[in-house]
């Protein structure tokens, strides 16, 4: 289904006389950012979920856990942001 859609888009882009690579660039941007967001999405979910579990078990250590959680989020999020920047950098 998705492949067929891509094929239609590809042929549409190919038949457009003006600039056939322009649409493909847009699709590429979407794929790059979408792909880059999958892993960090799961990762941030794991980080925050486990931090909440830790805070619920030991509320007295919530401060330390929160700081470490933000650090973990920052490291994980970097990958998604690389994808975000890369999506801008791609130019047709």
């Amino acid at each position, binding site marked *: 289904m998705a492949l067929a859609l891509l094929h239609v888009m590809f042929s549409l882009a190919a038949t457009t006389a003006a600039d056939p690579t322009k649409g493909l660039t847009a699709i590429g941007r979407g794929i790059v950012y979408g792909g880059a967001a999958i892993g960090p999405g799961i990762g941030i979910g794991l980080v925050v979920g486990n931090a909440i579990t830790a805070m619920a078990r030991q509320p007295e250590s919530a401060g*330390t856990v929160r*700081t470490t959680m*933000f*650090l973990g989020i*920052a490291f994980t*999020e*970097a990958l998604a*942001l*690389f994808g*975000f*920047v890369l999506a*801008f*950098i791609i*130019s047709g």
Partner: protein
Amino acid sequence: MNLLAVDVPPLPDVTIWGEGPGGINKTGAIYVFAALATLLVFFLGTRKKKDELVPSGLMQNTAESGVGFVRSQVVMATMGPDGMGYLPYLTALFFFIFFSNITEIIPGVQFPANARFGIPLTLALATWVMFNVVGMIKQGPGSYFKNSIIPPGVPKPILLLVVPIELVSVFIVRPFSLMVRLFANMLAGHLILVTFATLCAALFAKNVTIVIMPFSFFLLVAMTGFEILVSFLQAFIFTILTAVYIGSSIHPEH
């Protein structure tokens, strides 16, 4: 070179300030404001008062709670008492990044200066130079290099794989990710706000689309609130990562 929303000037233009009165553009003006605001908070907040035990006044309260926050949440949490010498730099860094981020939601300005990557890159390079120099001074150049690329307790054959990864991640990815994290977060937030604001304006027409407008407006308000959190959080994360990197240079893993 025009990369969609990001205007990346050609390389010779980078050295030019840009246009505006006195050659200062909006980004530059915001940075001047951020630097002046940081200076102002600490100059006015730390003026000697006659034998006052209780802090008073907006500036003194801001300065004292800021220093207290950075000391307990950043320095003590990552470096311990050894890192107290870095407290002034980290506090100034935190306030400067926060002031240049918070302009994102100030009406009339509405632009986070850190959405252009010049200054984030400079700050990241400052951090890079700092943790390298501190590591070389504290551990000696040879053992600092050895400690940072060879993690302890790794079997010999695996080192073949681990050493290149560590080399890249410590000396290249660290400053680059610091820069990208700050810059891309602020740019993304700015783009979201711009999108919803222009959507509100476009939907505010004399036809049926005005029914959808309140939803867009609600999201605009909600995202503005969220961006306050983000601009604080990014300043905090930049500061705490600087502290973590310097801390890893002071205390190598055994």
